[in-house]
């Protein structure tokens, strides 16, 4: 037998082709079924975070543009969308879903170029799930009369929807699909750093022949969002983003009669008991915190592990982190892509520095980061106390804090010791413990022996400072309807 040494299975670059994407140099606003120039003619560049290069210039909507969009949405609602039979609305939504599937590759590549997430994720998760949401709510559109026993579900009117940059197309789908299925019209505002897939979606909406004005897309900055929220013609505001902005929106709409749902930050606990399937736990932890570079509101950023297996789990985790591939998001073998923006990278860096300064122990695997673009290696903190900033504040980056516990009661106390309450994970082979723990968790989503799994039929939303209202499933219809007798 020959005596060969170890063989390193190096992966040659496997970049996804950018050929399906045809970018324009400038984009306007999608209002009343047309691409129009912003009134003040102001444009802002959107950057590829993996290279730092500008991809295109996108319109910045001012108050006057927002007003045009809301007026168009109102006209479309009163002009027929509100009275369209559910089966007819479903027809449009099914079309959108199918068109998204047909152009999935194009959307996935563009999502990765504009946002920096690995193509593996945009291809296998973001785009298929976005289509799935349209399919799911298309199915509800003609069944609203049976969704809420004994009550009829009437649409609200014009919905203002503001979405974040971490799942640009998917969040657009989460917002648009239920709103449209319930008979509302929409003004959607994408995040400033990731407007491109929403603008490509405008093409799909036109191809699906959705009546003009039913969906309007206004790109822009914080001022655009503020103008939209404050507009008197808006009946409903839905926001996904930071707790800070969510609070400001809550204050703004108070007393106006506008309905509001908020999906805000999180600091989820991922709780590992000593009888769990530790190899799958390791994968689950990695998926919980390094998925989309940790830029996920429901990320499992606090690992609570039972003392007896803490060293084993941390050892397995470090070993696994060494195999994570950080780099070009368009490479099909990349596990962790670029951080969405320089500002976000700075914030992550600042919190990591605070963790080191407060005495926690930092581990990052040996990996070379690309010279250009915004990248952060996967990071793991041990010796973390519940008082540390890294254990309390949402980092929104690939940074995990490890804490230990002895008893299930202690795990519950630590897990709930946060102002947030979006998600939690429980890892144990004991079914009764899963049920008991899930009952104790003050979190909107509790995953058992898995993490970061999404399905359009499953409601998603938070407790406390993570917001209110649910998206997904039947519960996701409620924010967009008035229940009448």
């Amino acid at each position, binding site marked *: *037998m*020959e*005596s*060969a*040494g*170890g*063989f*390193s*299975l*190096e*992966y*040659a*670059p*496997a970049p996804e082709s950018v050929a399906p994407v045809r970018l324009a140099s400038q984009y306007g606003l999608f209002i009343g079924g047309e691409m129009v120039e912003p009134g003040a003619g102001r444009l802002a560049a959107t950057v590829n975070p993996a290279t730092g290069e500008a991809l295109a210039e996108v319109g910045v909507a001012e108050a006057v543009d927002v007003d045009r969009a809301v007026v168009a949405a109102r006209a479309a609602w009163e002009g027929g969308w509100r009275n369209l039979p559910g089966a007819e609305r479903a027809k449009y939504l099914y079309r959108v879903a199918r068109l998204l599937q047909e152009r999935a590759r194009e959307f996935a590549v563009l999502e990765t170029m504009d946002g920096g997430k690995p193509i*593996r994720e945009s291809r*296998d998760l973001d785009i298929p799930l976005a289509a799935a949401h349209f399919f799911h709510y298309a199915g509800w559109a003609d069944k609203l009369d049976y969704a809420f026993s004994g009550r009829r579900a009437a649409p609200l009117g014009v919905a203002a929807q503001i979405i974040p940059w971490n799942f640009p197309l998917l969040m657009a789908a989460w917002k648009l699909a239920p709103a449209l299925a319930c008979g509302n019209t929409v003004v959607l505002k994408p995040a400033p750093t990731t407007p491109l897939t929403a603008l490509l979606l405008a093409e799909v909406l036109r191809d699906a022949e959705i009546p003009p004005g039913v969906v309007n897309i206004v790109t822009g900055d914080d001022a655009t969002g503020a103008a939209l929220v404050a507009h008197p013609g808006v009946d409903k505001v839905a926001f996904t983003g930071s707790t800070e902005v969510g609070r400001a929106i809550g204050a703004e709409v108070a007393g106006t009669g506008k309905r509001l749902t908020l999906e805000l930050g999180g600091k989820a606990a991922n709780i590992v*008991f*000593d*009888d*769990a*399937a*530790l*190899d*799958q*736990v390791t*994968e*689950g932890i990695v998926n919980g915190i390094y998925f989309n570079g940790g830029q996920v509101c429901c990320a499992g950023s606090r690992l609570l592990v039972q003392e*007896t297996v803490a060293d084993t789990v941390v*050892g397995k985790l470090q070993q696994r982190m060494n*195999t994570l591939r950080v780099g070009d998001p368009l490479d*099909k*073998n990349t596990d962790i892509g670029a951080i969405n923006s320089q500002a976000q990278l700075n914030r992550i860096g600042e919190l990591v520095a605070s963790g080191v300064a407060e005495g926690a122990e930092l581990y990052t695997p040996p990996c070379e980061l690309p010279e250009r673009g915004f990248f952060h290696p996967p990071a793991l903190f041990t010796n973390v106390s519940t008082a540390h900033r890294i254990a309390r504040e949402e980092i929104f980056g690939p940074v995990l804090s490890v804490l230990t516990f002895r008893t299930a009661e202690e795990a519950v106390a630590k897990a709930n010791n946060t102002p947030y309450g979006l998600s939690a994970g429980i890892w144990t*082979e*004991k079914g009764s413990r899963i049920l008991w723990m899930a009952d104790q968790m003050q979190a909107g989503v509790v995953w058992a*022996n*898995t993490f970061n799994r999404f399905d359009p039929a499953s409601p998603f939303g938070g407790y406390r400072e993570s917001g209110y209202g649910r998206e997904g499933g039947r519960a996701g219809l409620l924010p967009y309807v008035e229940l009448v007798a």
Partner: protein
Amino acid sequence: MSLLSPILYRVSDLLAAESPTGVADAVAGVRITPVDAVGLEQRAAGLCTRSLKTSSKAAALELAIRVMDLTTLEGADTPERVQALCARARRPDAADWSVPPVAAVCVYPELVPVAAEALAESPVAVASVAGGFPAGLAPWEVRLAEIAWAVAAGADEVDIVLNRSAFLSGRYQKAYDEIAAAKQACGSAHLKVILETGELGAYDQIRRASMLAMVAGADFIKTSTGKIGTSATPPIALCMAEAIRDMAEQTGRAVGLKLAGGIRTAKQAWHYLVIVGETLGPEWLTPERFRLGASSLLNDVLMQRSKLGDGCYQRREDFSVD
């Protein structure tokens, strides 16, 4: 008593307090970690999306040849067929001498002398199935004698089957003792223990059988006989690789992994290389610690290899049928 929860097992928990064959406490004390089927399958599917291009594809194809156990286990096997297989094992592509030899040729015991002669002075090992392959239901003395016979006839490696009848009915000590005795009968020959994963019914059972076989002395653990419908699959390969990783971490002993049954395409082969490489590390990607048991795989690997060279697929007729 252990501080761990009551549902946790160590291999020693499966064995009688006084094991007649005896094994070091430290080894028998290895933990049998539970397996979550959903997570395991998800991770395996994720690993199978790895994209191998250009230079890494070429390296993977070459490695697939170097770790291959070229196998023929048919009732209709003839000395001539085995001789032809051995010739291919030494030089897989007659038209391209840069192709490395495979790791071993795997045959039934009766054909071991033929293979041993044909492979004399070559780097290719002779592997023999033995011990009542494939069901392991012959009387134990007969099975043990068969193992000894194969080694005496020139087998460098012996592939035996786990006694599923004993294992599945909870007679772990019996299953363990058989493997330990087989290991002794092998002498210096390498022992591969086939778990026949398709008959074990659950990933937890595969993990348990893997740990039991490793503690009992297996040099390799192997998925399947190839004689039943379900053979190696990516999640099963991952499950066994994780068991091997646990064994190495807890005892320092490096056990090999052999995947066999239903591996026919080069793409399947490199998925398995990725699973093993990313789970156990590059040290496992050698013929000493990793094997692919297959009969028809070689031709597909050669075809992909030559396609990578000149961009054209050759005809099936250009490759040997044996």
